[in-house]
């Protein structure tokens, strides 16, 4: 039952975006549409990425044309430590702060929720913000390598935010399966 860009089936909300790939070591990044709700509401990006070699997972946010990159501020933490990674202005988000294991059944599994707003310099300001949960395997580790990271942040560049580009820092994206859902609109 499609209603505009929203489609509800017998199985529930149908993803508005799906990117699957098993391209080997050739993909430098994978980009998904995270915003089909006209800049107001909530979407979810759920999936996994496995790098070609041990690498941290970074996320960049862009406008719909992939021309204008957004700056962000965020704080990220992980299990088994009270330390965090924080920045007041950055061009990308560290979803993990450690290298992810590239082995076949490992990688990085995550949920990222996006809250959209007008993101304009008008009063009251309404931010585009996000928070995430991530489960990943530490590169090179055995049974102790089961880790979790989480964080939240917001976009600090005005205007449209529509795309998320995932990058295996210093490596390539080997396998990925990402889906984005829209649940709450306006």
């Amino acid at each position, binding site marked *: 039952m499609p209603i505009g860009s929203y489609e509800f089936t017998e199985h529930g909300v149908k993803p508005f975006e799906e990117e699957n790939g098993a391209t080997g070591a050739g993909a430098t990044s994978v980009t998904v549409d995270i915003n089909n709700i006209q800049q107001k509401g909530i979407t979810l990006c759920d999936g996994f990425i496995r790098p070609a070699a041990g690498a941290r997972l970074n996320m960049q946010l862009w406008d719909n044309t992939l021309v204008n990159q957004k700056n962000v501020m965020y704080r990220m933490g992980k299990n088994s430590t009270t330390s965090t990674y924080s920045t007041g202005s950055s061009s990308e988000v560290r979803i993990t702060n450690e290298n992810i294991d590239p082995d076949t059944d490992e990688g990085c599994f995550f949920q990222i929720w996006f809250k959209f707003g007008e993101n304009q310099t008008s009063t009251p300001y309404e931010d585009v913000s996000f928070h995430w949960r991530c*489960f990943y395997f530490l590169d090179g580790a055995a049974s102790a390598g089961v880790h*979790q990271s989480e964080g939240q942040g917001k976009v600090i560049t005005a205007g449209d935010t529509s795309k998320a580009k995932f990058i295996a820092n210093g490596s390539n994206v080997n396998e990925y399966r990402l889906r984005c859902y829209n649940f709450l609109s306006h």
Partner: protein
Amino acid sequence: MSITFGGHGIQPIDEVSGNAIYTSISLDLSPTNVPDNNANKTQLLCVAGTVSPQLDRRLIYFRFKDSSGNNALLKYVVKTKLATSVARSANSSTGRFNRYYQGNAGSTSSLAGERLSFIMFICEQSHDSQPYTNVHGHCWSATQYTSTSYNQIPARTAFITKTYGRSSTLQIYANSNGIRGNVRSWRWGGE
């Protein structure tokens, strides 16, 4: 087992409620071929509820089973706000909601009784060829630790299955003796 959309939102696909003691609480997540056992199909699920162990001082576990009743092997990590150390495993048929023991004082007689409440989000898309996928998910819960002044201990669990193939049942149980609870599962997305 398609979902039903009611006047208040998506209705549960399964529900266990009442005061009965179970060896384990089992919830349907997916029959063998729903939404479709095709390689590129998925479902997004939510399971939430409140449980209490039959006896005091127990760990609350969960596990996934396929349609033949086989346990999936799990990798998981649990952390709390009370410690920097975590509970985790890279190869277990049992995942944990909590790092500390769960009590059951007053569990059936008091609103302030010791029970564990949780919300679990599950992406069920297991697939055994490239791109490889597993069941993966995240859980928020709060333990009430036996015989201490810790009223609520927030815990966060992240997990994947390392066994490929569809998972059709989620079981929740204690490390020994029985468990009771009110738990529901919903499918809110899928393709």
